């Protein structure tokens, strides 16, 4: 495996939303348009974890949704394993696994059924799928729960099942929006262990978070996202300059942010 092989390249990604009347009211704003992501350019490398760090509303979710082809950029493009998110969204979907709390599993079905279903949805061959299920279910301790309806699983187990199903097709790239948000400490640990495990398996990960410690613990590279723009980007040590939190707030105030 080549060292430092570029696997994700985002080029000048832009996304503007038109705000609904209801949304304008909720956010107490008269503006009709909201620039959520404003010209993002960055690269992520094979076998590394890339973190997008930013406060609420910075545009993290929007960026990751563009990378996962759920929404289209207004301008710019991104290449995942060389596939353009604009021109070949279908190819991109086959090389990524997307994890976010917005994507749910139907409570009626069992992990066993859903694994097979999503495997088929990604076109994984039957024999390969069965082998992968055996391997992943035992590695993450899902075995005994494989036949339990998802609605009856504990939060921790459900999280594990979601994680495993998002990588059913052995994607090269895993995109993860706010991996530990809303999770209790035990489940959060499961998730971070899972991400480190994925990295050991040679996968590349892009995650978003607003938690400094998570970036410090996991990430090889980090991009600081403020108001839809990257305020700093690079290897963790270079960006952090010894103290990630202090650097972040310096940048934040420098961009006119108030505490």
């Amino acid at each position, binding site marked *: 495996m080549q060292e430092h092989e570029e696997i994700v390249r985002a080029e000048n990604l832009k996304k503007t*939303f038109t705000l*609904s009347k209801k*949304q304008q009211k909720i956010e107490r704003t008269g503006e009709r348009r909201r620039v959520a992501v404003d010209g993002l350019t960055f690269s992520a490398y094979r076998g590394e974890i890339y973190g997008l760090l930013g406060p609420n509303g910075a545009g993290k979710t929007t960026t990751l*949704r563009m990378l*996962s*082809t*759920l*929404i*289209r950029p207004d301008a710019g493009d991104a290449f995942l394993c060389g596939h353009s998110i604009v021109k070949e969204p*279908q*190819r991109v*979907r*086959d090389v990524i696994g*997307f994890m976010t709390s*917005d*994507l*749910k*599993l*139907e409570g*009626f*079905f069992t992990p066993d*059924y859903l694994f097979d*279903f*999503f495997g*088929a*949805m*990604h*076109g994984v061959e039957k024999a390969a799928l069965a082998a992968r299920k055996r391997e992943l279910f035992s590695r993450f301790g899902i075995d005994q729960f494989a036949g339990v309806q998802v609605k009856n699983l504990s939060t921790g187990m459900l999280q594990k099942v979601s994680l495993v199903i998002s990588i059913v097709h052995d994607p090269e790239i895993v995109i993860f929006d706010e991996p530990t948000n809303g999770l209790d400490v035990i489940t959060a640990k499961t998730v971070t262990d899972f991400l480190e495990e994925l990295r050991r398996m040679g996968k590349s990960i892009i995650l978003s978070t607003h938690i400094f410690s998570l970036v410090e613990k996991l990430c090889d590279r980090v991009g600081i996202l403020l108001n839809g723009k990257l305020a700093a980007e690079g290897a963790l040590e270079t960006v952090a300059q010894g103290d990630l939190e202090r650097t972040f707030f310096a940048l934040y105030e420098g961009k006119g942010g108030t505490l």
Partner: protein
Amino acid sequence: MKFLALIKKEFYRFFHDPRLIVTMLLPGIVIFLLYSVLGEEFNREEEARQYRVYLVGDSAAAEAIADAAKENGDGVEWLYTDDASAAREEVRDGKASALLVFSENFDASPAGHVDIVYDASDETSTAFYSLAAAVLNIYGMRFTVTAESVTGAEALGMQVLCNILPLLIVVFVFSACMSVTLESVAGEKERGTLATVLVTSAKRSHIALGKIFPLACISMLGALSSFLGTALSMPKFMGLSLNMLGTYGFWNYFLILLLIMSVVPLIVSLIAVVSAYSKSVKEASAYTGMLMILSLVLTLVAVFVPALGNWTVAIPVLNAVVAMQGLLAGALPVWQSLVSVGVNLALTAVFVFVMTMMLSDERIMFGK
């Protein structure tokens, strides 16, 4: 393979949820039991009825009526007469049950006419009327039937039921489609499980059809159950034995089935489109409720306005209702039925396409 997996999932979910199966099949069973019990109650006799019926003219149909009466344990005494007005007097005075006036050469003429005079305020007379009307309705349609109640009020006859049956079918079809489609499309969107499928590389058209096709098959079960429940209990309700049903031709049943089979996917795809648009099951049910009222209005038009023109084939749902009315009355409007089926299926294809577009539209699927 992806398409197959999508279809299998919908079926799996249905056939492994006893609650859903019951929701689908119960209406038909309830209707059958209800109508049968009601019919039994209405038509129960301590003693056998003996109808005294005046006949002006004659027809083999009279024999068929007598046979039907005999099967219910009743008897008919035919009184041949030429004096219709005297017979009418006797019906009004309760001395005779009814008067049947057959047009001349009834059995031989291509467009005969029969008039039934009865008394809606008299139990026996009304019973004879519904029996005769039902038999005549099924007997053949090359003649027209007019009925007149000597005391004003009209009894509910087979004719009315033939008109109302399509309306009942529309209601059943709609509720069957609604009960599975709202849950499966709007429910999945609201709960975020549809989004999980959208991140896979499955084609959006496959995802759309992978919902609509199995849901239509499942709804068909519900619609058929309701239809069978109604059709099987109706003769009993009317005081006829079940084998009267056999007098409708095979093609009548075939076309009715075909019409129902064209309305089901149409309504499923329509509800699917509405569900994909809505943010929640609640919102989707509100829209679907309006659509249901709309199709009921269409159907009511067909029930109360006789002889709508040929333009009705272009109006979905209404086209099926009008065609079914004809089929239930014994006619065989083949082209009208087939064109209606074609129109409904074409529109279904349009809705599948619209749903595909909606699944690809980020503002609809992921908008705030």
